[in-house]
């Protein structure tokens, strides 16, 4: 292999690396959880990520899509992606079988400030598919639970069938090291939990504003209302973290599609604190 060829294949940020699908789990009607393992050992060992970062999933012939990593950085050697069947690439991914190969680039972007959050209380709020990136943070906190104070998780979904990772969270409801409250807009016969928007749960929780970090992810419309609730609890703007979904096409700050205010979600985010987000035009 010539030096030039080697460079184009190994030092090329556009080049996806083959990863094998090692497990597929149906989560809801629209979402599946994929476990992926990079095939090249060297690439796999070099792959380190933070909760909140994303990868570009590549299916040649269809295209690429940015997907946030749902598994915790404390688990190395594989990643989990919670994927909604919502477009061409995610549709093609949903059609894949266990053992099939897809392409991966990344990890990209700035994740949650895990090290900074350590030693503090954490309040995590997710709506719908917003749990996908927050799951990584939740599991990372779980794996290093003794380093954190109170951990509160508020989860909202449209109906019980759409609650992602419901089995895990149903079990967590009984743990005393996590305060977990789930709510749905439309309950069914099986539902004995809360009903209504996730913002309504703020009446039920105690927040120590001097020690709490917040993390929010959900549909675009949700941010403003959840941030308002956190601000009402006197949390500092620069301790409230949000993760934005944008069209992160290249992932490396070049193609321009994920511009948010004066920054790019792919390299400057997708996680921003609220002070930064307030200074990003049209972000919230």
């Amino acid at each position, binding site marked *: 292999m010539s030096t030039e060829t080697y460079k184009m294949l190994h030092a090329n940020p*556009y080049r996806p690396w*083959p990863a094998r699908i090692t497990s597929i789990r149906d989560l809801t009607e629209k979402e599946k959880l994929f476990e992926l393992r990079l095939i090249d050992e060297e690439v796999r060992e070099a792959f380190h990520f933070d909760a909140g970062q994303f990868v570009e999933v590549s299916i*040649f*012939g269809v*295209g690429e899509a940015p997907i946030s990593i749902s598994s915790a950085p404390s688990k190395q050697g594989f990643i989990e992606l919670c994927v909604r069947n919502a477009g061409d690439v995610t549709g093609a991914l949903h059609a894949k079988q266990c053992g099939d190969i897809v392409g991966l680039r990344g990890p990209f972007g700035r994740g949650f400030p895990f090290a900074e959050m350590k030693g503090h209380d954490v309040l995590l709020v997710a709506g719908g598919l917003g749990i996908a990136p927050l799951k990584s943070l939740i599991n990372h906190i779980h794996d290093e639970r003794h380093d954190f104070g109170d951990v509160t998780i508020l989860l909202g979904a449209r109906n019980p069938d759409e609650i992602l990772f419901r089995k895990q969270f149903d079990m967590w409801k009984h743990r005393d090291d996590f305060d977990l409250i789930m709510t749905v807009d439309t309950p069914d016969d099986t539902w004995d939990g809360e009903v209504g928007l996730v913002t309504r749960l703020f009446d039920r929780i105690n927040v120590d504003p001097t020690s709490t970090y917040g993390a929010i992810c959900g549909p675009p419309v949700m941010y403003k209302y959840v941030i308002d609730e956190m601000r009402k609890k006197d949390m500092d703007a620069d301790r409230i973290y949000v993760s934005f979904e944008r069209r992160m096409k*290249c992932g490396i*700050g070049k*193609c*321009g599609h994920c511009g948010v205010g004066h920054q790019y979600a792919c390299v400057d985010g997708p996680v921003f604190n609220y002070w930064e987000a307030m200074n990003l035009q049209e972000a919230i």
Partner: protein
Amino acid sequence: MFFRVMDKSRLPDLVKGLSEEFEVVGPVAKGDTFVFSTIHDPAELRLDYDTTILPPKKYFVPPAEELMRFSTADNEVLSAHVYSHPRVIFGLHPCDINALMLMDNVFLGEYEDPYYKARRESTLIVGVNCTPKDECFCDAWGTDEAHWGFDIFLSDLGDHYFVSVRSVKGADLLDRYVETRHITPEDTAEFQRVTRQFKESFTGHPVDTAQLPLLLDAKFNDPIWDELGDRCLSCGACSMVCPTCYCFDVHDKLSPSGETGSRIRTWDSCQFSEFAEVAHGHNFRDTGSSRVKYRYYHKQWGYLSKFERVLCVGCGRCERACKADISPRIVVDALQAGGGTL
């Protein structure tokens, strides 16, 4: 930097000499306009050109290029090549030289782009000074002068050129192919006189850049953006002709068998309606107004917040290309005037 003086009659020697080692590209006449094109005969080279329709970015980021070839069966990359060869771009104006350096910040910074880099490294730049036209406002950004970003720069002093030599390669080629002499204090004085004359010859409407980044935030909800949005055709012509617009799209093209294909990168524009749309249909900039505003916001503030320069060199190409009478000068004027009316 060191300097030489070259007799104008020697220009064909230099072009011919360079042609032995490089593809020589330069401004040539096309109808009543000019384009950058391959030079086969030094006589084709029109160093008296005003501007070109497309900027030289096409030689570094082609309108469409293959990033890699793949096979679909095992989702494998088959090959990734950059097609570049030794090339000289002869006759770039300072605005276009500065524009390339602004592109460098994006493509050669974090996550270096190997395609751009290979082309940049295999391309020599020979600059030439110019005469400002009505559409030019490079003086507003300080991009009317190029201090680096070229190998050789020719400043027209009548019957000879004042030659600035920036790179070793430029010095070697100049030595090899053309007769020059050392500069005298008189040559430098003449160069200064011509420069002063150039500075005073901007005839177009000046651009008032005072506190522009701040104004873009303070007037983010100003009605001028709605007026501009109503006017804008979302055609993207401004981005295509812009020497600093770098946004791109990527798509996969399958071979007829469907077994292999190419991943292709093409020029894109934030002015296209679906540019900021995400998978399940939400469009973060679904109005013409938000898109026009984003283009200016990014150029005059977003890029500046990272690289301390605005992403505009005042070449005036977008003003010429726009069918809806939108240009940086009109936008900046409206922002400075208090807004509300155009």
